[in-house]
């Protein structure tokens, strides 16, 4: 019997969102210090459109996750590691929801409504408020750096499983390895 892998959908969503998050995080780091220019306005819009898109993908992913239990962790894993892995996954999901929400609210507070791809306006849940906008900017930033740190831990743990425990924790999430199926 071969050990179970994640579903193709789960694998596709995992890597798509991972790639998008790295991209959005880098763009976010780059753009916030730019001097005002048409290019800056464009990049901000792209970042916001991307954030909304990832938010929707995360919702799809969560829905999929509720309907499809992931394969169990290796039986040999110590209990504390299972709890840590489980907790980390919960926090990652939480941040993937909280980060786009904080960006959306920050945009509203700063007086720049989010209009998805320039077509679909998202309602402003809060009014323009300069101080609140600055607070939310700080929140957005802290949440992002927390996510970045946790993603590093997440990837590090996966690599450790692969290289040290030599189990399938990493490979069962890798695409294009379907020969086990």
């Amino acid at each position, binding site marked *: 019997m071969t050990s179970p892998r994640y579903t193709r959908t789960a694998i596709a969503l995992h890597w798509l969102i991972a790639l998008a998050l790295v991209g959005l995080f880098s763009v976010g780091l780059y753009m916030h210090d730019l001097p*005002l*220019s*048409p*290019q800056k*306005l*464009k990049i*901000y*819009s792209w970042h916001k459109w991307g954030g909304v898109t990832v938010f929707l993908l995360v919702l799809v992913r969560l829905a999929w996750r509720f309907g499809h239990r992931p394969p169990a962790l290796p039986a040999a894993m110590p209990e504390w590691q299972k709890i840590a892995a489980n907790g980390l996954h919960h926090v990652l999901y939480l941040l993937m929801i909280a980060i786009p929400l904080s960006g959306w609210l920050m945009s509203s507070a*700063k*007086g*720049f*409504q*989010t*209009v998805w791809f*320039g*077509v679909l*306006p998202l309602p402003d849940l809060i009014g*323009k408020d300069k101080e609140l906008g600055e607070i939310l900017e700080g929140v957005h930033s802290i949440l992002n750096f927390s996510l970045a740190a946790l993603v590093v831990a997440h990837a590090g743990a996966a690599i450790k499983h692969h290289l040290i425990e030599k189990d399938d924790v990493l490979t069962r999430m890798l695409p294009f390895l379907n020969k086990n199926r």
Partner: protein
Amino acid sequence: MNRFTLATLALLAAAGSAGAVEYSQVQANKSTLTFTSKQMGVPVDGKFGKFTTTLAFDPAKPAAASAKLELDLGSIDAGSKDANDEVVGKSWFNLKVFPTATFVSSAVRALGGDRYELVGKLTIKGKSQDVTAPLTFRQEGGNGVFDGGFTLKRLDFAIGEGAWSDVSTVANEVNIKFHVVAAPRK
């Protein structure tokens, strides 16, 4: 009760003689001048803090009415600090050379009911354009209240030159709205 009745009668009398009332004492603190631009398809609101309106309007003789606006462009709030720092510069308003924008009316037409049309010359950054602004007029608490607006094309006035002339980022059309409250001449 009596006093109230008297006040009502006085008001009615004032309203009855409204034809002879010329609104000209502009209440600067009750008047606003706002605008909405579009950045990447997103409406962004802004306003001007300092402007002087001179007007004379008698609803019975709209054709004789006149209006003049002197706008201190430095009092702009374009929606964010970044934008406020940017718009005073050369490619936008070039505030050092052109600190003031003006509007001088050439005609006021009655469109029926409480609707009027204000026609005049708008000058910004040394460039003049004829503009037509529909507006409504109503009497409120003894004052005349004018609400109207129009759309200007910023590139007609060279507002946002160079890289900023790309209208796919900041739209050419800017909606201007005015709300002017004026008391009758004493």
